[in-house]
Structure formats: C-alpha cells, structure tokens
C-alpha cells in the first residue's frame, strides 16, 4: 500500500496491467519502461458481463477484466448487440482473446483495433474511477489521438457499455487483413436504425472514425471525405481508399438485410 501510494506522484511512471497483450510485448521490446506495474487481474468485481435490463434490454455492460473470449462466447450479449460478436471474432487469434480484455482494448485507443471503433459506432461509453470518484466517458469523447484516450492519468477504466440493437435495426462488420488475425488494412462496420445509417472505420484514420451517411447516395464517398488513409509497408493509401468503397458497400447490404430479419 505504502509503495503504491508513493507511486501516485510518479504519473506516467506507472502502468496498469489487465490482459497485457499489448503492454507486455512493449516491455519485452523495451519500448515501454514504467517504474511500476499494477496488476489488476485479481481485483474483484471487474469480470462480469451484464445484459441490462433483463435481456432483451437496453444494452451490454462488461467489466475491465472480461476477456475478449468471454464476451465473444456470451449468448445474451450477442443477442442483445450482434455487432459485439461479429467484431470480436476478428480480434487477433483465440489464444490472444483468451487473455486480452475488451475494455483494455477499448481504452488502448488503437485506431486499427476493432473494439474502439465498435464502441464509437454504437455510441457506447466507458466508466472510469479515480480517487476523486467515478465518471462516465461517452465514446465520442474517449479518443484524443493515436493510442491516446481521454482518461486522466490517475483514472482506471472499470467497465464499458454498448446499447442493445434496437428493433428494426441492423449491423454488419467486415475487415480485410493481410493474414488471418492480423491488424486490418481496413475495417468497416455498419449500423442501420429506422432513422439513421452510420458507418464505423478502422485503420484509415488516427482515431476510430464514425460517419453518419443517413440518406447519402454515396456513403463511401462521404466517408472518404473525412477518413485519412495512409501508405504503409502493407498497403498504399489508394488501395485502402479502394477497400473502403468495397467494404462499405458490403456491410451496408448486410446490415440492411438484418433490418428485415
């Protein structure tokens, strides 16, 4: 206790370890050098999945220690918000999903990751705690930049919440990666409700990006107007833009189908 309290002042010198599937490799590569690591894996009460109110209901809340694989396998969660399962099945490989946590991924704020984009597209939120108490950060205020969330340096994410799929709505997810399980070159999700059509994108901007294309006759074009695909060693910006068009069409068609289901 004393040591930890003493570490409070260290600010960026300390890191929280939950799943560790991103932090530990950074340590091994010596890219991260925190003075202190706080392993919260045995903190009680962070490993629950609640579908509230009783399913079929308003949404899914999952704790900071819920592993991707637990959420992926959760039938009620999948029924309440199908996009969770559609996206989670694309997160790395099963072995990584067994350890990695979904909340951890969400606040890791990697614009190439599936779950931050899903939270943004669905308009979810994250509940965080600090010595000052707890607060709720809506998804559209959560991402500040590449790998940067708006959590204060002394805040810990407790859980994340995503709304359930409303009646007459549909969702779909598609991504293209070089190898099965790799970071996507481009990923797109669609969320169609009776009164709005929104698209979420990953790997084509610095932060998870959501575009409202309600009534647009060129949804992909509208999206590309705000997206910033870049060249890297795996794909050019032009190819990524092309994939944005291809995948946007695909997810819109499938989400549309679901609305009729």
């Amino acid at each position: 206790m004393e040591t930890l309290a003493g570490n409070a002042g260290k600010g960026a010198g300390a890191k929280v370890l939950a799943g560790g599937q991103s932090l530990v490799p950074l340590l091994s590569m010596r890219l991260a050098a925190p003075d202190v690591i706080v392993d919260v894996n045995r903190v009680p009460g962070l490993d629950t999945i609640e579908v509230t109110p009783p399913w079929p209901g308003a949404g899914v809340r999952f704790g900071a220690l819920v592993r991707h694989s637990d959420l992926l396998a959760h039938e009620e969660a999948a029924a309440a918000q199908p996009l969770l399962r559609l996206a989670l099945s694309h997160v790395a490989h099963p072995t990584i999903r067994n350890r990695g946590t979904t909340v951890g991924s969400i606040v890791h704020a990697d614009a190439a990751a599936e779950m931050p984009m899903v939270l943004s597209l669905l308009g979810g939120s994250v509940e965080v705690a600090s010595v000052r108490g707890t607060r709720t950060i809506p998804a559209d205020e959560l991402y500040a930049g590449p790998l940067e969330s708006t959590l204060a340096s002394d805040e810990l994410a407790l859980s994340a919440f995503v709304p359930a799929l409303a009646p007459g709505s549909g969702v779909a997810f598609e991504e293209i990666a070089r190898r099965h399980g790799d970071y996507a070159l481009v990923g797109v999700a669609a969320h169609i409700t009776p009164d709005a059509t929104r698209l979420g994108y990953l790997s084509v901007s610095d932060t998870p990006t959501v575009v409202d294309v309600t009534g647009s006759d060129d949804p992909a074009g509208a999206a590309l107007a705000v997206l910033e695909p870049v060249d890297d060693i795996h794909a050019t910006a032009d190819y990524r833009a092309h994939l944005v068009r291809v995948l946007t069409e695909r997810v819109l068609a499938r989400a549309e189908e679901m609305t009729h289901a």
Partner: protein
Amino acid sequence: MRFTGQNMLQAPVEQVWDALLDPAVLVRTIPGCERLEETGENSYAMTVTAGVAAIKGTYSGACSLSDLRPHQSLVMKLDGAGAPGTIGATVNVSFSAASDGGTSVSYDADAVVGGMVGGVGQRMLSSVSKRMAGEFFSNVERAILSPPSAAAAVEVESEPGMPKVYVDPAAVPGRVSSQSDFVKGIAVGAGLVLAGVVAGALFGRRR
C-alpha cells in the same frame, strides 16, 4: 519517412519567427522538452521525453536552426537517441502571412527513425509525428498569445562563459527511469482504491 503538414497560427509572422528563435520559448513548445542547452548560435543540446501512451522514451539529442531566411523559411535539424530508438530529422519550415493577420506555417520533414521503435512501431509513426508537430506549433501559438508567467521557462544561472541552460518547469520532474531500473516494483492484485491512483492508459488488445 517523409511527412508534411500545415498549421495556422493566430499571430503575425514576425512574432512567430522570433518565438522559434528564442530558446526560452522552444524549451516550452517542443513537446516533451525538459532541458535545452545553448551550444552555439541557434543550436542546442536538449533532453526530450517523447512518444505516445506507453511507448515513451527520453531522448537526448541536438537541435539546430539553419538557412535562416527571416520571416520566410528555416531548416530545423534534429537528432536524438533514447532507449526506444534513434531519431534524426531535417524539417524545412516555411512561413507566410495569412490574410487574417495570422501566420501559415508549413513543414516538410524527412525523418529517420532507428532502433526498436523504427522496426516495430511503424504502424503509428507518421500519425504520431504529425501530431507532435501540430502540438509544437499550437504550443508556439499559445506561447506567443499568452506569454506565461508562472510556467515561464527558467534560464538557469550558469557560470560566466558556460553555456546557457533552459529548463521547462512544466515538464515532468526528474528524469524518466532508465531501462536498467524499469519496473522496480510490481503490485499484484491491487485493490481498486490503489489502482485508482495509478497512471496511464490500460492495455488490453494484443501485440
């Protein structure tokens, strides 16, 4: 790695120019800059803590401004080395007065990132660099528009004849732990209250 960008500063070009040549301003505006030591005219040795999220490192290096064409353009040469890797950059900066009395600053950087971060951090590098450049110029703007008093850069008293040293009190105090003592301690299964006082983003996705 090349990256270019443009920033609008709400200040006349003369002021922006002067700010960039003032070490007391530079030390406060270069993101993560903790210490700046004048090693010659418009050339400095500096200590910078840079990076995103956990991928942060303290780099010691040098910065020099050359090819000065007052109020028009200059070349900023940067190089540094730290635990995560090495960075060397040549940044061509050009200034032009904007219609609204502000200044448009555009830069064209050619950066070489070496070491581990160069080999495995590729996916984030360009967006991070862009972001830091943006941060730098908005800092410059802030420095010009609101000449800070409290957080003013301190020119450390130095012996006559010794190089001038500037420090940014606002910067993280003390040097960031060197690799050798990283993860001095580890707390297992900390309670929530304890966890609450712990800094930093959570990590939880994958590699």
